[in-house]
């Protein structure tokens, strides 16, 4: 098994090769050997040649995204496989310029308390779009930039799941 990992767009790039429990980790041409063992709670315990031990956990977040938690904190990284192709595609994507069409999605499940706009309305950056209530908190969703509301997928009173499309703004 061999995969490469990218640390944020434009970040460093690390390749890991091997089969359980022994892996080789390469960065900038330097290579380290590590023994990896699954722990009962789903974490992975790594043991390096110098005796260093770190236990951490990986959770998939999206298609190519993995979140790793270790005692030093949490970071997200992108699995790139094969490396070059993905890398360039991500860079192209990042360079493609500002948003043309923005989908406003619910960040958490909740109830739509109020919708301040309708399809066809013009909105300014910072303008109130709607109010979503979750866990006793009212969250005001505001536009990040000016535009026209193309679609309004919800109505006041409706309950929405995390990730649900609320509005589309052009």
């Amino acid at each position: 098994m061999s995969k490469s990992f990218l640390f944020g767009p434009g970040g460093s790039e690390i390749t890991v090769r091997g089969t359980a429990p022994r892996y080789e980790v390469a960065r900038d041409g330097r290579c380290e050997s590590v023994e990896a063992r699954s722990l009962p709670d789903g974490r992975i315990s790594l043991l390096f040649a110098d005796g260093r031990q770190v236990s951490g956990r990986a959770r998939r977040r999206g298609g190519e995204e993995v979140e790793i938690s270790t005692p030093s904190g949490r970071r997200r990284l992108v699995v790139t496989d094969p490396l070059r192709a993905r890398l360039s595609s991500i860079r192209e994507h990042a360079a493609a310029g500002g948003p043309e069409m923005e989908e406003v999605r619910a960040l958490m499940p909740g109830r739509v308390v109020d919708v301040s706009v309708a399809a066809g309305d013009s909105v300014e950056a910072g303008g109130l779009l709607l109010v979503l209530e979750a866990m006793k908190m009212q969250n005001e969703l505001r536009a990040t930039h000016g535009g026209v509301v193309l679609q309004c997928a919800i109505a006041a009173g409706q309950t929405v799941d995390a990730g649900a499309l609320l509005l589309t703004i052009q």
Partner: protein
Amino acid sequence: MRLLVANRGEIAVRIFRACRDLGIETVAVFSDADRAAPHVAMADYAVRLGPAPARESYLSIDRLLEAARTTSANLIHPGYGFLAESAPFARACREGGFLFVGPSPEVIESMGAKTVSRQRMTEAGVPVVPGMLSPAASAAEIGEFARRAGYPILLKASAGGGGKGMRRVDGEAELAAAFERASAEAQMYFGDGAVYAEKLVENPRHIEVQIVGDRRGGAVALGERECSLQRRHQKVVEECPSPVVTPEIRSRLSDAALAAARAVGYDSCGTVEFLLAPDSTFYFLEMNTRLQVEHPVTEAVWGVDLAAEMIRVALGDSLSEEVRRAEARGHAIECRIYAEDPARGFAPSPGTITALRQPSGPGVRADMGVEAGSVVPLDYDPMLGKLIVHGKDRAQAIARLGRALLEFEILGVDTTLPLFRWLLGESDFVSARFDVQWLDRRLEGGAVLERSGSSADEVVLAAVALASEAAGESGSRPDASHRSAWRQAGKIEGLRGS
């Protein structure tokens, strides 16, 4: 003896533990969102209140009393939040023939109305923030007040609230113009131009004193708690004792708190909150007529069981010997663990807790209202529980907090645990240099997000990622609430509620 807790989550669990220690039977109530919650599974009796919304369940006085009647409960404990400081609820309990574990409805009422409590505290000799008792007819009248109280002062709309129409005045030169503008704003916002002035306490700390009174006239103060670490006026981390309160200030604070308690005949566990100014003067803020979220730090340091004591005095017992003779030992810190993501502006993160690894060992206590598999519902306050550490001094408590946070793991929902890990690296926290605004100021710059994970070795991360995938540990179903959160981070920032 049978006690019903009109609450849910960690405080219901906490009170049930006290009941078990006292040999009292327990009655849980639950909404449809909580049938499988830990507080229900540990109770001797349990009664469904209604659907998830609080007004149809935990806030329904009728249904709560009906549940108490059904299960032949003798005592009703309100916990905190919900109906904990509702005089009508306390009165309904009394009239229904139940012993309410808390002060009388009259005491709750007298401390609930700010103006009444301010008046009674002034009469009892408890210092309150100096302020005018009626609207000012002119800038000159305010000037007279300011000369007595000292600048800076704060102009407030008499009909106002929520910070609108408030205006700071640093000296006499600014006064006339400020008065004009404040009055105009008050007219605009509230349709009433009346304005009055209060002394402005700058860079205050939030310090509160724990009191316990019995129904035979006994009352003691069990030191203070430092609650200045707040986010948007919500306490986040609490300590006992305050690192800045000297024995001399403590003695004055305790005297003031006891005077406040005696003035209203306080006969339960309660808290007197003060603003402490940098010059060590302090002012009465309000009295909380309930068991506080942060009571465990006082329990750890003073070696008492406040939840049990509150039930004992409600039953008519005198204050126990160990409460009367309690002495402080060491230092304790509590962290409130919320299902909120500090990296996304503390957005609530409801969902299912897929795994929960609690810390343990010397000086560590975790009071949790959830367990692995628990669903964190949308409908209530998103507090999952509390981590309390105790050490011989503040340095050891902080060290143990760091150790406990290394061991603590909650999966499935985002929590405020990363906030506390970040806090341990803040020199202002370690050296106790903070006031009530400090945390909000530090969070403005997205500080928590920045530090998170920055020290992690990337070789480690990559190796964990691959080994985890090889072992099939990383999970095949991505968590919906986090889908592509990294790339969306920019967008999310812009959408965050104010």
